[in-house]
């Protein structure tokens, strides 16, 4: 059986300066958005996995199945608030390998 291909999505976390959240809050809100907009049918296909979330550098990397890339981008984009904090989770780049994702210039900024 052929292995399922993955996609890595890099997203920016844009907020208004004050943000006291942890990784689980962001993950919960992503799942909530997937459930609300797409339901269980799509949620089962996604294969969501958090690779990295850096709140200081304001970015995150998540992994999903390659067929559900657009679903996950939509779910990320439609998040406007996490625990009462206004945030934008804006997808920047998608990639098939984590190696090419790490080459993204956005991640190299100090």
């Amino acid at each position, binding site marked *: 059986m052929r292995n399922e291909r993955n996609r890595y999505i890099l997203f920016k976390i844009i907020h*208004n300066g004050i943000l006291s959240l942890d990784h689980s809050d962001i993950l919960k809100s992503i799942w909530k958005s997937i459930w609300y907009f797409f339901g269980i049918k799509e949620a089962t296909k996604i294969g969501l996995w958090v690779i990295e979330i850096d709140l200081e550098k304001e970015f995150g990397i998540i992994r999903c199945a390659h067929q559900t890339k*657009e679903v996950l981008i*939509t779910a990320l*984009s439609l998040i*406007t608030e996490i625990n009462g904090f206004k945030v934008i989770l*804006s997808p920047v780049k998608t990639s098939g390998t984590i190696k090419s994702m790490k080459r993204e210039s956005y991640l190299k900024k100090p």
Partner: protein
Amino acid sequence: MSYFESRLRLNVENFEEIKNKFTICEKLGIKNVIIEPIGKLKNLGIDLREKLESLTKMHLFYRTCFRPKNVDELKNKLSSNRKLPTIFSIETPNKEVQIQAAKDSRVDVISFTDPITMKTLTSGIISLSKQNNSFIEISLTSMMVTNKAQQSKNFRELYRIAHSVSSLTNNFIISGNFEDPYHLKHPRALISICHTLLGLSIIDAKKAFKENVKRLIKRVQDRYDTNFIENGVKFIKEGE
């Protein structure tokens, strides 16, 4: 040129808010924005344009939106503003005005932003605008309402309108038109939303955010080009 945010409403009396919106747009990575100035100073002078352009590195384009109540008001507004080098859009739930706007070659865009206006869109208006080479604009602002029941209804209306427009014409654009700066999204994210939730194909959605907007801007530039006569006919300088 990459994707366009086809409608960003800015209150030109509040420059702090404009700066904030521009900062968020730049953080999102938006490169091209079509601005719709609102407020008392909405008549775009060169000073105002220079001031806006000094605030950002993004490519700025301009549009003016009219909301006429009847056909006479539409004609008056179009004739009094005809020298403004901007995109002219019309937004009204009045069908008579929509039909007249679709027939008028001075109108570039007929906008359908809120659910009430969206319900008034008919295939006749789409056909008329197609004949006239003007554009139909669908705005995604209604999907960001907080009331979940209303949001579902708005999604249904957006789905219906997106399918009827995309099946009948190529001349359509999709804009974000978000009021709250934290509702702003990169056009690529909006393409995903159109594909997954509104059922548009990725190719159609990309056209609505890129090629069609470029064609719209070219249409306006050609209108103010004195050498341009009509599609395919243009005076050229010797040796050009």
